[in-house]
């Protein structure tokens, strides 16, 4: 019998982490310490809901680790979340990277998601992928597709199960190449063809912008032509994305239409990145909260570890693999400990908080230098039903939570 129950399991550990974090708070960057403090008191376990019941306090290990294995890239996309281009001086050596794979396997991490930069510009990429295969780690490679030769595609096929995301930020050369650079569309399509020819598991990954939104149907068709699924992700104001976010991020009306479009295309993946749109009132599939520092984190080329790929900024660096083990950072980093206890900030009074849990902290930080504000793309902000500015008489519609991931056996 399935029951949806309140989870209290990690409270004891969580309090331990809190004390540890307090003791080590001197290690926190002052801006991070101030930002965390502004979010208010941590939620009590009885106040948590949805995915938060399980993720609050962190898991014993990440579910997925995003690993930006090199900053080297042959493209210079205008929205690159890690400002990639040139290889960086302290990038992990292949031997160091192999040791990290071993450690992640020992911690029972389920999946490594390789990105960059362009992963195929990392000199040790083959050895790293082969080690993942040996250690039974699920591999996902996010690539711009331009460096996939028929020979490489064939070699990759021998590493199955391995999953590929090839980036296309528009269904036409005009839309895509204004983001990803000249000729990027044609070269990515060629990469897709070569990977598809080997029967590899593919997704076409597309960052949703106000310019790509009208092309969603065509992107969906392109993915279908390669036997791939379409994966649409949220634009974040990280890295070079900060400079173009205002221009590129979708409008609220586009987001509203996007939710309807997703409903009509249930096979489209979203990488759990649009949970802030749950505040429209309809819970999308997947996590209903930010999984950074709880279910996932990001390893960067020079060994820096951050809460997620979109939060690469020195204030929130949790540790560095040149100095500490991954396990040590995951379990004892003050940044992670505080991140896991973040309060609801100004969203605490919102009746829709349980649907979106305040949105994306990285977006808040890069747009407003604060973690206590609401998500800059909060779909309720400024709307007639804005719950944070509603009169006491205003009707509050409570949306039933669709809890589909909790099992309890009595």
């Amino acid at each position, binding site marked *: 019998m399935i029951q949806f129950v309140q989870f209290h399991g990690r409270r004891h550990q969580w309090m331990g982490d809190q004390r540890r974090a307090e003791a080590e708070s001197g290690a926190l960057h002052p801006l991070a310490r101030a930002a965390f403090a502004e979010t208010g008191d941590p939620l009590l376990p009885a106040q948590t809901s949805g995915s938060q019941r399980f993720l609050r306090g962190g*898991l014993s290990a990440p579910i997925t680790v995003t690993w930006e294995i090199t900053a080297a890239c042959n493209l210079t996309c205008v929205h690159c979340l890690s400002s990639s281009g040139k290889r960086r001086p302290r990038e992990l050596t292949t031997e160091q990277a192999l040791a990290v794979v071993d450690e992640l396997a020992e911690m029972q991490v389920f999946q490594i998601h390789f990105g960059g930069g362009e992963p195929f510009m990392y000199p040790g990429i083959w050895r790293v992928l082969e080690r993942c295969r040996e250690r039974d780690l699920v591999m996902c490679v996010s690539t711009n597709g331009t460096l996939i030769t028929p020979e490489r595609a064939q070699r990759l096929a021998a590493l199955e199960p391995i*999953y590929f995301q090839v980036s296309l930020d528009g269904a036409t050369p005009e839309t895509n190449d204004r983001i990803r650079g000249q000729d990027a569309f044609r070269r990515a399509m060629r990469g897709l063809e070569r990977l598809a020819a080997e029967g590899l598991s593919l997704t076409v990954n597309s960052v949703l912008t106000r310019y790509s939104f009208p092309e969603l149907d065509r992107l969906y068709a392109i993915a279908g032509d390669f036997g791939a699924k379409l994966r649409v992700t949220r634009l974040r104001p990280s890295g070079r994305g900060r400079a173009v976010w205002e221009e590129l991020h979708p409008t609220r009306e586009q987001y509203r239409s996007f939710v309807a479009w997703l409903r009509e295309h249930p096979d489209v993946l979203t990488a759990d990145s649009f949970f802030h749109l749950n505040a429209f009132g309809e819970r999308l599939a997947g996590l209903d909260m930010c999984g950074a520092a709880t279910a996932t984190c990001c390893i960067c080329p020079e060994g820096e570890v951050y809460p997620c790929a979109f939060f690469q900024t020195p204030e929130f660096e949790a540790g560095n693999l040149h100095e500490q083990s991954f396990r040590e950072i995951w379990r004892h980093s003050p940044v992670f400990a505080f991140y896991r206890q973040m309060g609801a900030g100004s969203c605490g009074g919102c009746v829709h908080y349980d649907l979106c849990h305040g949105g994306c902290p990285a977006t808040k930080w890069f747009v407003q230098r604060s973690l206590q504000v609401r998500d800059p793309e909060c779909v309720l902000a400024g709307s007639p039903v804005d719950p944070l500015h509603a009169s006491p008489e205003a009707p509050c519609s409570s949306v039933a939570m669709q809890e589909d991931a909790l099992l309890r*056996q009595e």
Partner: protein
Amino acid sequence: MTMTAHSAGYRYRLLPEVKIRREAFGGILYKYGCADRGTLSFVNSPRLIDLLLLAREQFAGDLSAAIEQQVSSAGAKARLLTALDELRKRGYLEAEVVAGPAPEETAAE
């Protein structure tokens, strides 16, 4: 045919590609890939997680055999079978017919 959770005519087998990890609240089941909509479940029952791990380690994934050997109470067996049927629906297990359908299943056909 409608398969009920309490059917004695099915053997539940854990799919080999499913990963299981213990957590303080119970554990996580994972069957995932970027090209598929990921399957990830938080299981709020340490006992169920223990059973899944036991089945994998000692019974080659045969959950029915693990239950037969480890669980004596009929009530507990029924509850476990209910949970296993839910896991089957979520794609973590396969059910194999080993006997004729139970009477209520015949009626549902």
